[in-house]
Structure formats: C-alpha cells, structure tokens
C-alpha cells in the first residue's frame, strides 16, 4: 500500500519537475523520494544559481595557489594591528598629555584596522565566484574610500586639533 502511494507521488513529482528526460535517472529519483518524507518547508537562504561546468565533468574543484601574504601573514598582521590599538587608545587618555606623533599613529592604525575589517566583510559576503562584478566594484570602492578618509584624517591632523583632542573636546562640551 505504502509503495503504491509513494510511486504515485513520485510520478507526480517527476512530471511536475523541469528536468530534461535524461536527468530523471536514479540520483534525481532518490532526491524526489526523499523529498516526499520531508515535513518542514524548504526555505533556502541562497538557492543555487544556474550551474556551469568548467573544463570536463571529471575535473576536480580547483584549489587556489597558497599565498602566505594573503593567508597566515595577513591574519597575523590583522591581529597585531588590533592588539596595538589597545595601548594606542588608552595611552593618550590615561597619560592626559597629547603627542601629535602618537595621535597620527593612532589615526593610521585605526584606518588600517577599518580597511582590513571592511575587506573581510566584502570577502565573506560577496563571493568572487558567484558575483565577480560586485566583488570588484566593492573592493575598489573600499580602496577609494580608504584613500579619501586617509586624506581627510591627514587634513584633520594637520589643520585641526587631532583626533584625541577633538573627541575630548566634544565629549566634555
């Protein structure tokens, strides 16, 4: 009885699907048979895009060439920059004195930290393989923005009172 019901369901599912004739072979049949047992609704976060096969069907997934400067060295640098921000942020407020050089170093470190942080976000959420154009636009947009902000911080440091002193003045206003 159960098998009769299942085969009817299977037939229905098969005719409803958009598969071409050769795709209704065992792999697809198994997926459809399994789908009949699913009780919860399917809500895919990112449904797969139309697939494209690079090279032949027997080629393995390409492994990108290893590069320490994009991998472990970059990771370590990120951590060193983040860790150096702790004393750089605390020192001027704890010491009560302001050193223009220290303030410039703080600004530069914050800029690098922000840039690599935004870079991590872009790399994580805009995959190169899936959306190559958006990836390129965002990467270069970020580079341009960082140059602009670097210029602005230079202006602020040289013509205004500097970041630490400005925060202090606004905070106690």
């Amino acid at each position, binding site marked *: 009885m159960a098998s009769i019901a299942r085969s009817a369901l299977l037939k229905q599912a098969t005719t409803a699907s958009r598969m071409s004739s050769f795709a209704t072979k065992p792999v697809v049949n198994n997926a459809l048979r399994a789908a009949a047992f699913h009780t919860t609704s399917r809500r895919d976060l990112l449904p797969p895009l139309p697939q*494209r096969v690079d090279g032949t069907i027997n080629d393995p997934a390409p492994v990108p060439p290893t590069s320490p400067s994009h991998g472990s060295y970059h990771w370590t640098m990120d951590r060193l920059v983040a860790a150096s921000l702790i004393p750089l942020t605390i020192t001027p407020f704890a010491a009560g004195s302001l050193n223009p050089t220290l303030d410039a170093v703080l600004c530069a470190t914050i800029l690098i930290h922000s840039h690599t942080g935004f870079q991590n976000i872009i790399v994580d959420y805009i995959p190169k393989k899936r959306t190559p154009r958006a990836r390129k636009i965002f990467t270069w947009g970020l580079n341009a923005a960082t140059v602009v902000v670097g210029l602005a911080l230079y202006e602020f440091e040289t013509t205004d009172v500097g970041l630490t002193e400005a925060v202090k003045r606004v905070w106690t206003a």
Partner: protein
Amino acid sequence: MIAQRVGTTALRRVAGQPKTFFTANLARISATQTRQVATQKLTHDDATNLLAQQRLQRPVSPHLDIYDKKQTWFGGSIWQRFTGSALSGGLYAFGAAYLAAPLLGWHLESASIAAAFGALPFAVKGGLKFALAWPFAFHALNGVRHLVFDLGYGFAKRTVIKTGWYLWGASAVAGSYLAFFL
C-alpha cells in the same frame, strides 16, 4: 517484482527438500545470476548538462532563523562586526564629509562640532554619547576576548557562552560609564 528476486521462492522451496536433483546445482545457479546494467552513451554537452542538473539537487544551507536565536542574534562574533562597521562607517562618513565640507560650506571643524554638541540638551547629549560609547566598549572588550581566543585560550564551550553573556553586561556598564560619568 524486482528482477533479481525472480525464482528465489522456487529455489527456497527446492532448498527445503533435501536430496533432490536441484540442490546439487544450487550454488551454481545462484552464482550465475546476472544483473542487468543499462549504460548510456552521452555526448560531452549532455554529460555537462547532466552534471549541472545534478549539482542543482545538492543540499543548500538552511535559512538562518532555524538556528537558536541565542547563538545567531546574540553571539558576540556577529556583533563585533556590527559594532565595528558602525564605528568605522561613522569614521568614513565623517572623513568624506570633512573633506567635502569646504566645498559645500559645512562647518565640521572640531570647534564648531563641540559648540553645536554643547548646545544640545543633556538627555540628547547622553544618548548620542552612549550610541557611540556602547559600540566602542563592546568592540574593544570583545576584541580582547577574540584576541584571547586567537591565542588558543577560553575555547571550552561553557567558557565561550559564559564570557559571551558577561560581554553584554560589561559593555553596557562600560558604555554607560563613558557616556554619563566622564
């Protein structure tokens, strides 16, 4: 009925009756059973299309809201990113505006900002300061927590959960202190 099963009932019946002619040949009969295999010649394009179709059937990551809310929405990790991008986004927006200010006639020098800020009522001042101080406190404290993780400490599941909840309390206290008591 499945093809391979054809004749098994008969064989079983025969096996139940010893000393018949067939039992001697039973091993040979079962050993020579054949299995029908259907193969199909595909062109290169057909094979590629088949693989592409099969890839569409692969499992996909489920939607975020099937997970425990405590982990997805109140995890320190994603809030590190939220607070960091809010602070850095603010800096980038201020930087661009500061550079464009002379062209647009805005006054974003520290003196005018401080004067404008000082003119605001106390509650607004406190609210704005907290809106800046809390993300800063959270990002700084959680940043230290993550640097400790990166050194390989505090990775026990209970420790991660516990320090995650401490983080919310500590950042609220530190943010309030920076906003209202400095």
